[in-house]
């Protein structure tokens, strides 16, 4: 895997910054979307989910208030060349509440580090910052001019630059936009980027989530058409490393993470609700797996770092998954970590997380 670009993402030239009216709250976005299948759906099962749920939604009273991106169905709604809205949503005054943060850390087994050694204030766990920023990214993905169906998008990978810590209770500004629309052999990919800026104007944290809209093969504005015979690249078969641990994930794992992340996608909550969306059963949130893996690494306090995670097959709940943590050193000797999560019975990878010092 390539190493992470150390450059922190920033809003491109020509993007308009707007402040969405009202507060950006996930429940409101979910209420309009009915269900959100945008994140954490590794393996592509959600496309069928969207095929099932969208017609139902459209025919219901909810359909009338659905954002444009959800109102019409997937590929067929797209006409002409695809283009992302050149808009960045800016939301001020976000902060991590102390009790919420403690609950989040408990659910993902993270021990929050202090802002500085001996400091009374706790730094917000990097995975929790993703949850803090996520509604702002969703507000862009559910804009009327966003060209792809949000329900059904697959979360392929996530890269975070954790430049400085943000204190619990500290107010930050979130800026979210989409970019890098590009074609993929099985659809169209794009990045949703969120940065968190401290009051002194420095970017403390930036997260880039790469999504795949499966089955969308429309031309992309400014991109050369891809050759017809686009085959999947040869992937090295997964070889399980020696485990250093295992997680016993109960059936309630998705509900527990939903309660702290606000991500109440039904595919994570229970088998019946997941089946209603075309899944075989409930699956763990990808970002739950990522946060738990990150919490296992020995990133020392005060060290800026990047982490990136690639999602392979989803974790069907309940599950016992094997984990291998590989830190290259401790404390001052630390510079990189890798955490692999896989299904030990079937020998299939779930997630691969890499962390390195910035």
């Amino acid at each position, binding site marked *: 895997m390539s190493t992470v670009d150390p450059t922190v993402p920033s809003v491109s030239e020509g993007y308009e910054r707007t402040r969405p009216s009202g507060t950006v709250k996930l429940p409101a976005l979910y209420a309009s979307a009915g269900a959100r299948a945008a994140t954490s759906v590794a393996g592509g099962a959600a496309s069928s989910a969207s095929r099932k749920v969208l017609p139902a939604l459209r025919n219901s009273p909810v359909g009338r208030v659905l954002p444009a991106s959800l109102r019409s169905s997937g590929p067929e709604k797209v006409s002409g060349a695809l283009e992302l809205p050149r808009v960045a949503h800016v939301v001020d005054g976000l902060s991590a509440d102390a009790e919420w943060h403690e609950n989040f850390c408990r659910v993902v087994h993270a021990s929050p580090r202090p802002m500085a050694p001996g400091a009374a204030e706790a730094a917000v766990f990097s995975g929790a910052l993703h949850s803090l920023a996520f509604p702002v990214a969703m507000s862009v993905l559910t804009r009327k001019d966003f060209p792809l169906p949000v329900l059904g998008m697959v979360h392929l990978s996530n890269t975070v630059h954790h430049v400085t810590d943000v204190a619990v209770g500290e107010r930050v500004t979130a800026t979210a936009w989409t970019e890098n629309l590009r074609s993929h052999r099985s659809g169209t990919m794009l990045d949703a980027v969120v940065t968190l800026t401290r009051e002194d104007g420095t970017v403390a944290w930036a997260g880039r989530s790469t999504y795949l809209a499966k089955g969308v093969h429309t031309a992309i504005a400014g991109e050369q058409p891809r050759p017809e015979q686009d085959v999947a690249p040869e992937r090295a078969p997964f070889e399980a490393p020696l485990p250093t*641990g295992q997680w016993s994930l109960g059936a309630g794992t998705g509900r527990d993470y939903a309660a702290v992340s606000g991500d109440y996608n039904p595919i994570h909550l229970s088998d019946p609700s997941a089946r209603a969306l075309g899944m075989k059963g409930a699956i763990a949130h990808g970002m739950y797996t990522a946060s738990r893996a990150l919490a296992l690494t020995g990133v020392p306090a005060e060290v800026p770092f990047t982490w990136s995670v690639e999602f392979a097959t989803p974790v069907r709940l309940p599950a016992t998954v094997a984990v291998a943590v590989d830190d290259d050193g401790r404390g001052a000797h630390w510079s990189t970590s890798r955490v692999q999560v896989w299904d030990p019975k079937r020998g299939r990878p779930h997630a691969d997380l890499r962390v390195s010092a910035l």
Partner: protein
Amino acid sequence: MSENTQNANPKTPAAASAPAAGRHAAGATGTRPVVVAGNRIPFSRAGGPYANASNQDMLTAAIDGLVARTGIAGERLGAVAAGAVIKHSRDFNLTRESVLGSALDPATPAYDVQMACATGMETVSSISNKIRLGQIEAGIAGGVDSSSDAPIAVSEGLRRALLKLQRAKTTMQKLQAFKAVRPADLAPAVPSSGEPRTGLSMGEHQALTTQHWGITREAQDELAAASHNNLAAAYERGFFDDLVTPFKGLTKDNNMRPGSTVEKLGTLNPVFGKKLAGEATMTAGNSTPLTDGASAVLITSEQWAAEHSLTPLAEVVDSEAAAVDFVTGNEGLLMAPAYAVPRLLARHGLTLQDLDLVEIHEAFASTVLSIMKAWESPEFCKERLGLDAPLGSIDRSKLNVNGSSLATGHPFAATGGRLVASTAKELAARAKKEGKPQTALISVCAAGGQGVAMLLRSV
């Protein structure tokens, strides 16, 4: 130095003016702590005759048996140290409560120790050190564990809700607290043998180490058979007559299988390491079962022993603890003794081959074999221990001569006391027979990647 500390002990003003007799001759300072006697109840497989016995019942029985055998009823000892690995929070003063229920003077102070499976070793070390410093003259070290009478806790969700309820002042707040309880929270939480940081059971951790060192099924079964047969032979010749007191109808460890053979053990199916790529070799036969039991060891100064007409068996020379980073897979969970032992030996200018007896706790047969293989490995000894030459092999005829945990069972905190008492007795017997001082090494691995090693020497 010892003059002053002895003076501080009001119980033995005479000791202050006593000559250097009873002091360690070879460099060590202070009063020599000696093992005088040991006692345990027979160890029982979980769910057996001790199913209804509490930790306190068993520890009290072990202490009372020791008190009766040594005739020290009503004595005020300097300290009693013991502990249990699996302990209910109401047993915060388990050892003190056991002392209060025992035949000892109720004015005997006591404290609890917890160092997982090395708890018993740590209590022996702690009591010995107090004697060496002159803080106390005599004390009991021990431990107890029950896997049958384990505490059961409420779930995390219910626990948090109940605590919130306790803090709530208004009816509204109380309702809020209860609102958070989910039906699944009503299921109780049973203690597990999993490592908190990795989620792997001890057996699964050891399975990784077993594969790393390439320990074969046959070698493990051989060690297990030897453990059962050595224990059976020791019972046969009456070795445990003054080391074990019957309890609840049990007179011998009921896990013992006399006549164990590699063939019989070879028929068992593997239980650990089944998900790993290589062959799974660890079975119920070459792993210790969950066990109930308790042990206690009387350690005193030589002078106290003489005053009470007791014969010292062996001196507790020194001990060393070690810990390893198993969380990241850098080292095996139960490999800490491989680090503790060479440090302890080096401090005393000893080699593995200088030892007359070696006791390596059989958490699993492959634990003992992995540790010994590491000491034979030039790479391990160079890269991990920083030694120019490997520590070398251990003569199997000196290893776990009277059987060990595979045969007796392993009530976590009680194992240290069992090992120290048996080894001290064996040392004394061998010294008498050989006519020269004998030295023994005891090593015990523990959860959390820890281990304690100890040297005993005949007196």
